[in-house]
Structures are given as C-alpha cells and as structure tokens.
C-alpha cells in the first residue's frame, strides 16, 4: 500500500505538470484577451496606450514559452500569482471560496445518500414492484430536470409559498437546506439506479443464498453482504463527481447566492483571468488525484481479492 501511495505521488506531479500545460494552452487558445476585460471599458475611456502598458505589465508581450516558464517557475515557489481582475493572490481567492463549496458539497452528498441509499435498496429489494417504480420515478425526475428549474421550484414552494426557508444567501442552517436539496436530488438519480443494479447483481449470487440459509436477517444481508459488492461502481462515480462537486455547481451557486468555487471559476474563465483558472485547475487536479487514490484504496477494502491480487490498483 505504501508503494502504491508513493507511486501515486509521483504520478501526481506528472498530472499536475500536464494539467498546467494543458490549461495554459487552453486558456491561450480560447479567444479573448484579458486586457480588454481588465480595463472594463463600458463607462470609462481607455486608450490604445493604456492597453499596451497593461499588456506589457502582464507579460503578454513575451513569447508564450517564456510566459509559461515564468509562471511555472513562480509555481515552484508555491506562488500561483495574482488574479488579473481582482488583484488578489490566487491562493487567497481559492481558500476564501473553498469553505462554502465544501459545505455545499457535504450538504449535497448528505441529501444524496439519504435519498439514493433507501431508494436504491428498496428498488433492488422489490424489483419490478411499486417501490422500484417509485424509486425510478424519483431518479428519472432527478435526471431530467435541470437544477436551475429544480432550485427555482424548491424556492417557490419552500421560500415563497410556505416561507419556511430563506430564498438565498449563506447564513444559518436553514440556508443550507435548499441548495443541498437541489444538489443532492440531482445526484441521487444516478446513484440510486446504480445501486439498484449493483444490488440486484450481488443479490443473485450464491453467497447471498448461503447467508439466508444461515438465517441472517434480511437487512443485514442487504447492508453487509450485498451492498459491498454493489458499492464499487457507486463509489467510483462518486469519486468522479468530486471534481464536479467543486466546480460544477455554478447553477446552484448562482440561484442561491452561494459564494463557492463554481461561480468563481466560471467568472474567471469568462474574464480570462488566467491565474485564477490555472490555480483552480491545479488545485482540483491535486484534489481529484488524491480522491481517486482514496477511491482506489477503498476498492481493496471493499474487495480483498483486489488487495491480494497480483495487479494491484
């Protein structure tokens, strides 16, 4: 296991390097010039000279390789640079937004688990019967309703009609409920159905019959014996969605005025705020690699054959 982690750390460096190169290229390929966006022209006069000066200040007059190299060099010193638009260090910006993102992600995951686990298990327990159909209906609504719509509906019902919860903002516990519901509900769809297939698959195995023959309670069979094998794909999708949980929540963040990373990154992309985008991508890259390492380690916890297998993970 130690070896695996060590190898992963090496690969991590590699992934980060590749990512830095990739984002740099993508950002440069993307049409658009941050200079004009920084100068925010609408209500203020800007001259050609101002433009040139700024271009020079940002180092855009240098060849691309030089720009990349100097950025990379800075990065080695753990300095991700400063936001063009906001002028603040990238790291500060990321750290400032991170808590809200994580809180929302945790809330969403909680809701997701609370919805997906019972729905998936019930559906697998009664395949083709009404709990399955109800679960499917939920899942399908979750999968086909865009989150902006769901969010609006929730606000409409809970904040406007019933006035139970605030429409927006990040404050007390009550302000977490609607964003978490919106996020969790949409995610639950995939998980509940994935769980159902996984469970059906493992429930048809011989060892489940054996456990029944030993007189083990049905819920225990479900949770201890069947669930584990079913968790492999579920966990994988979960690991995959971590990147998305960080940045993919723009819609929800916009609806609920949630000060998370998603809104920041989209804004930064639109404004061609390269340092922020690059800092963010590296940050997520790190995060994703670590999460997937954890997921891979969990595989071997879930299935000892993987642990003792020759291939390793």
């Amino acid at each position: 296991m130690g070896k695996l982690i060590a190898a992963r750390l090496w690969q991590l460096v590699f992934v980060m390097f590749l990512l830095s190169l990739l984002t740099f290229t993508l950002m440069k390929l993307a049409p658009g010039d941050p200079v004009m966006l920084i100068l925010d022209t609408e209500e203020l006069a800007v001259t050609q000279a101002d433009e040139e000066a700024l271009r020079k200040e940002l180092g855009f007059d240098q060849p691309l390789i030089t720009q990349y190299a100097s950025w990379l060099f800075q990065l080695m010193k753990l300095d991700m640079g400063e936001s063009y638009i906001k002028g603040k260090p990238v790291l500060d910006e990321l750290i400032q937004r991170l808590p809200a993102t994580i809180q929302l992600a945790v809330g969403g995951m909680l809701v997701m688990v609370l919805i997906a686990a019972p729905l998936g298990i019930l559906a697998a327990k009664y395949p083709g019967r009404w709990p399955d159909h109800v679960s499917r209906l939920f899942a399908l609504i979750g999968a086909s309703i865009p989150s902006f719509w769901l969010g609006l509906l929730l606000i409409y019902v809970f904040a406007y009609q019933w006035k139970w919860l605030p429409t927006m903002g990040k404050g007390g516990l009550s302000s977490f409920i609607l964003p978490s519901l919106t996020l969790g509900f949409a995610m639950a769809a995939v998980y509940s159905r994935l769980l159902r297939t996984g469970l059906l698959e493992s429930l048809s195995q011989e060892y489940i019959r054996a456990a029944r023959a030993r007189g083990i309670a049905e819920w225990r069979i479900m949770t201890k014996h069947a669930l584990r094998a079913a968790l492999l794909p579920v966990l994988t999708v979960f690991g995959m969605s971590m990147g998305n949980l960080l940045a993919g929540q723009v819609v929800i963040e916009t609806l609920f005025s949630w000060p998370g990373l998603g809104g920041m990154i989209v804004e930064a992309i639109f404004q061609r705020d390269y340092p922020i985008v690059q800092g963010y991508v590296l940050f997520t890259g790190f995060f994703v690699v670590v999460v997937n390492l954890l997921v891979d380690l969990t595989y071997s916890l879930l299935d000892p054959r993987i642990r003792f297998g020759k291939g390793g993970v």
Partner: protein
Amino acid sequence: GQQEAPNPSIAGEVEKGGQKKAKMIIHFKTGSLDPHNSFYPLKFGVTETLVRMDENLEVKPWLASKWEAIDERTWTFTIRDGVTFQDGTKLDAAAAKASFERGVAASPALARALKIASMKASGQELTIVTTEPHPSLPSELVNPFASVVQVEAEKQMGTEAFNLAPVGTGPFKVKQFQPNVKADLVRYDGYWDGKAKLDEIEIAFNEDGNVRAMALQSKEADIVYQIPAEMVSVIQQDPELRVESVPSLRVHFLLYNQQKPLLQDNRVRRAIDLLLDRNSIVNDILLGNATAANGPFHHRLPFGSEDEVRKPNSAEAIKLLEEAGYQRNAEGKWMKDGEPLSMQIITYKGRPELPLIAQLLQSEAAKIGLVMEIKTVENVDQYLRDHQDWDVATYSNSTSPRGDGGFYLNSAFMPGGSLNPINLANENLIQVVTQLNATADIQQRVKLTQQAVDVINREVLHSFLVYPNMIVGVNNRILNWKPGAEDYYYINNKMDVK
C-alpha cells in the same frame, strides 16, 4: 400553522426595540468593497463623491459645496463643512486629497478620467491642477471611483480589512460584508445630512432574476433590482408590492460591420433599420419596460434627439435593397451578381433581450427573403474586434453615465475609441466631436451633441432601438425611495419603512 411561523432570517420586519430594517437585493455580486475599484461603496451609501447627479441627471454639489474653474487646467473645490467620516474624523481638503491620491494609485481608470497633475489642500479648499484642459472634470468626479474615504482609517485597519469595510462619509457604514453574498449596513449616526431613518440595511447579491423576484414576492426582500420584465405583471398583482420602472441611461442597438463593403452601403443599413419595429421590441420583448429609441441618448436628456422614432417599412426596405443593386431570385432570396445574400447576426447572452431582438430581426428579414443567421458568442466585444465574418450585432451601451454625451461619442465613434470595435471613422462625425471636445460651455455642448446625433441618425451608423428601463420591485412598506436613472445611488438617508 407553519405558514404563519415567523422566520427569523427574513428581514424587513420592524423588530422589537423599534429597530427599522430593510433588505435590498441587487443583481450583481461583488467580492470586494474597495472604494476605488468598486461602485458598491457609493451605491450602498457608505461613501460619497464631491459632486453628484440629481434626478434630472444634472451635476450638483455634494461633499463639495461649490467649485469653480480658475483657468483651463485649475479647479478649486470647496469641501463642505461639518462632514465627518464614519470613524468620527472631520472631512477637510487634506483628507479629500489623500483620498484622491489613493484612488488614482488604486485605479488607473480613475487616473485616466481625472487627469490630475497636482493637488493642493488648505482648510476646506481643494485645488486640482489637471494635466491638460479638462472641461468635464466636475462631471468625471461623479464617478463612483472618485469616492472620498478616510485614508487614515485604512492605515489603521490594513488595506484588506478596509476593502471589506471602507470608511466613508455616507449615511450607512459597513457592519459586515460577506463577499459575493451580502453586505450588512448600519446607520452612521453622525451623518452630515441628517441621521438616516433606517437602522439597518441588508444588501444581498443574486444573479438570478427569478429568485430575486421570488424574494420580493415572499416579502423577504424590500427592494429588488432588475426584476425580469416577464415578472412585472405578477408582482403588480400583489397589493403590497409595486414596480418602479425607470428609464436607464442605456441603449440597445444594432451595430453594423462597416468594414465590410456590404454594410458600407448606407442603403443596406437603412433597409435593415427599416425592418425592425421598435415599438414591438418595447411592447413584446421588454413588455413595455422600455422606450423606443431615436438616437444614442434618451430624448429626456437635455442633449437627446427630438426626431421621431423610425417606423418599420418593409416595402421601403425592399426598395432600398433593390436600389443598392440586389435582386430577388425565383425563391424570393436576395442575390447580387449571382451571389446569394446572407448575413450573420452576432448576439450574446449578457442581456437576455438581445438574442430575442436578434431572432426578431432574423424573422423580419426572412419575411422579405433576406437570410440572416444568428451566432451567439460568449464575449461579444472580443468577437467583434477579432472577427470580420459578421454583419450585424445586437449591442448595448450605457451612453451617458455621468450626465454628458461626450464620453460616449468619443469612445464609440472616434477611431481607437474603446467602444468602437469596428473602427468607425465618419468624417462628418469626427468633425463635430472634435469641436465638442474643445467646448466647456454646457449649452454649447448640448447643441454639439445633438448635432452629432443628427449625423449618426442620418448616416445610420448604428440602428438605435430602445432605451430599456431599469425595473425595480419595491415593497410598499418602503417609503421615500425611488431608483434613479443614473443607477448610482441605491441607498440614502431619507428612505424609511412603515
């Protein structure tokens, strides 16, 4: 049962102890309250400027009680006596000078706008020398970036803390600022123009029109900026709410790519101009919350045009196209020299009505056999600048941000101007604008501006379509408050709640 349960987080109730509170929601979020890089400290009534605009968009004294031009480049401003910053210190010319120094250093945009060469402070007299003759300096001082703040306070707090809670002279001070979420303001009791009526104001940011509207409907918020036009009718049904729809200083228009021979032809531009029914845009797209346009400046402005709004006329448009040398083929599509005529409309999502206008134009064009294709781009300015393949763009500008047309004429019609992506260079217009730039007299400036508008309309340089309104939803418990066309002063000391 549950419905009546009071929700502690819902502001807007007069709470025990007689605290008066209000909540406002605005449509842009901000991560900083840096007074010299953000409009918000001024909008929130935390800071103020030396001069301001009144309801009629005329420049009026504010922190400066009066000012005069000593010569072409020298101005003196008399700072109002008895004004204190929110930390209790007195505002004098030295403090204002320090504030401008900070502003010029922090914001290149401000530096460019003010063109300050040197400043001198003595008592309440602030003397400003500009680098070049600058007749519109007072008008430029309306700029929110020219807010006056207590620089000493910044030294004590540190810049970072100061940019989250700047110390100005306004009726409200920042109690707590949650970047990108909300700002909590409390009354500053020592306000020079009389203590504010409200004790606290919460300003939340939200970029989704539907959510903002619902926050108003649920009575969670008292004032909500930028209600979607589609929601106006619903909100008006609620007797507790009202909608303030005021003309803004913005204009939506069609931009023609006059770098292309096709659109260099005045007749083609005029033909396209004749396709659109401005009243239909006002009524069917903006649902009445706009005024049909007859030029870049609203006719309510002193320098706005008095011309009539152009009426659609497709017969005339067909005639113009034919005159320009185009014929329709058997299928009714336009051709020139055997080449089919097809145009590309550029639009963007930043203002939801623009893509609709583009679709309307497309449909109207299709009716006379003119093929137009729509392309939505993400960054319109960039696109227009870097690409040559487009023909028409839907566009929008704020044309008189500080009560003067000069800024817009210069940046949108002069070569190299920052709002002139197509490098328009109309000889006649350049002449008028150059003359305008050398004129300080207000009356004279109005005349010249109108003259410029005449040229623009005659040559159909752009097709100005509508002046959209600013739509603000207000709870009737809010008293003495109306949104201003200038869109600068959201909060004042007079506003009150029932």
